[in-house]
């Protein structure tokens, strides 16, 4: 025990937030983590300089508002217009959440089933690739034609955008078979189902989380894009409306909301990964 204490200590020291990245994908290499007071101060100072500098430059060079309004006006517009934007945010969230839930569930089930049968995987692979590479936005006019201007076409588009992303990543995860770990489970008499839940699923979890995150972000893109194509509500609709009315501070306020949504999606999955998949350093 004593001779092992040193490497143990050394490794425990490494747990300063850098080695808890969800996967070794660069997207996760640096994420939100515990920061010291000094780091926080530096981040605030840089933010003040960037935003303040932008504000100053836009006003100093008298850049017209329809090109780029200064940050203060965007912030005011966000505050002032938010009661009017909020319902649209709600619509977008409903589309995103329901479409993503459908797409993620179907994607996960397909990935789990298909990877159990390599032959079936070969057959469906081209179609999945087709779904992944086709921008689902292209189908929105058709979906609107068929399902009207309500939620349905957008939810379908979001599900079609998110599902394949979830599936393709989850399948990569499920394919990572570690025969020694499966042999371990089998040596205790594990059933196929037990091997799936206790070995394959946890091994796939980091990739599943990556898939869910990418799927959610693609879902957000598709939801907003679908709202821009047609219909009278949603954040995408606000974007087209404000830009057609040259209400640029309001337009950028909506863009800001979308950025925040995207960041929230990232942070959410980062935290889930930190909690449940931090074993994969």
């Amino acid at each position, binding site marked *: 025990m004593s001779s092992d204490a040193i490497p143990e200590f050394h*490794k425990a020291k490494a747990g300063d937030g850098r080695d808890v990245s969800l996967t070794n994908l660069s997207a996760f290499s640096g994420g939100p983590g515990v920061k010291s007071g000094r780091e926080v101060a530096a981040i605030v100072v840089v933010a003040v300089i960037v935003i303040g500098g932008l504000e100053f430059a836009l006003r100093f060079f008298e850049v017209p508002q329809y090109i780029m309004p200064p940050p203060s006006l965007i912030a005011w517009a966000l505050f002032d217009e938010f009661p009017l934007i909020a319902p649209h945010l709600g619509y977008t969230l409903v589309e995103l959440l329901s479409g993503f839930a459908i797409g993620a569930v179907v994607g996960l089930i397909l990935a789990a089933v298909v990877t159990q049968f390599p032959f079936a995987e070969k057959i469906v692979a081209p179609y999945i690739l087709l779904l992944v590479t086709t921008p689902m936005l292209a189908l929105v006019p058709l979906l609107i034609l068929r399902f009207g201007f309500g939620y349905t076409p957008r939810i379908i588009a979001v599900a079609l955008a998110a599902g394949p992303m979830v599936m393709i990543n989850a399948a990569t995860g499920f394919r990572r078979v570690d025969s020694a770990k499966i042999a*371990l489970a089998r*040596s205790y008499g594990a059933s196929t189902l037990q091997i799936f839940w206790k070995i394959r699923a946890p091994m796939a979890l980091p990739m599943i989380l990556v898939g869910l995150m990418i799927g959610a972000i693609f879902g957000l893109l598709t939801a907003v894009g679908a709202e821009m194509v047609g219909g009278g509500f949603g954040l995408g609709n606000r974007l087209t409306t404000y830009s057609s009315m040259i209400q640029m501070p309001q337009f950028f306020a909506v863009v800001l909301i979308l950025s925040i949504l995207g960041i929230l999606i990232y942070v959410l999955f980062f935290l889930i990964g930190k909690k449940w998949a931090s074993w994969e350093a």
Partner: protein
Amino acid sequence: MNTGDAKTPKLGVREATKIYHTASGDLLALDRCTLHVAANEIVSVVGPSGCGKTTLLWSMSGLHGLSDGEILLDGKPVTGPHPDIGLVFQEANLLPWRNLDANINFPFEIKGEKPDRAWIAHLLDRVGLDGFGGKFPRELSGGMQQRAAIVRALSLKPSVLLMDEPFGALDSFTRDEMNRLVEEIWLDAPTTIVFITHSIEEAIFLSDRVIVLSPRPGRVAKEYPVPFPRPRSMEIMATREVFDLTNAIKMDIVGGRAGTKARRPAETAA
């Protein structure tokens, strides 16, 4: 091969033959390999790389079927994973997403049984992992991981423990320490142990008997009793007897290789 003939051996391997059907043709890994292990005996199996040591052990565990022949536990054929047979893998093979406690709990989850907490606590204490239950494998050194794996295997109180080059990835000091630990545990609560290794020293230090397999296809080429009293100290490793025994085994293995020049390169791999 007379050992254990007087009564039913604890573990018997009878005419074990294993053919792997690979893309490049059939591969005979084991050829009528026969050996017996008495109850509470520690037997090591050594042999040149790719001679079928691991195949033999996995067949004993019931994880791999044989093409011909049979494995007998207490005289009854083993046809699949058996609760009386514990397995310790190459590297620790812990589940990285579970902490140490959850890793040790894993076999009981699979079996739907209640773990014997007192026994596990005793084992953890015995291997010096007391208080590490909340640690994840990546936070433990290689030696600690392998100790946890031994606790996991022993937690089910198997009457036969099969160890597949368990300390091959460890540095030589840690390996010596682990060898002493295995002996201590065995002196505490004797079990039948079959130990696969490519270290002749390790085999001699641990075993009552060392079995040398021939190059592929594996079959028992020779066996040597190791008569030193227990507990053994590292000092015995420096004695003349151990030196001679080590050399004899080495010559068996190397000599066996030299006699098979005609093998195709593909067969020497792995």
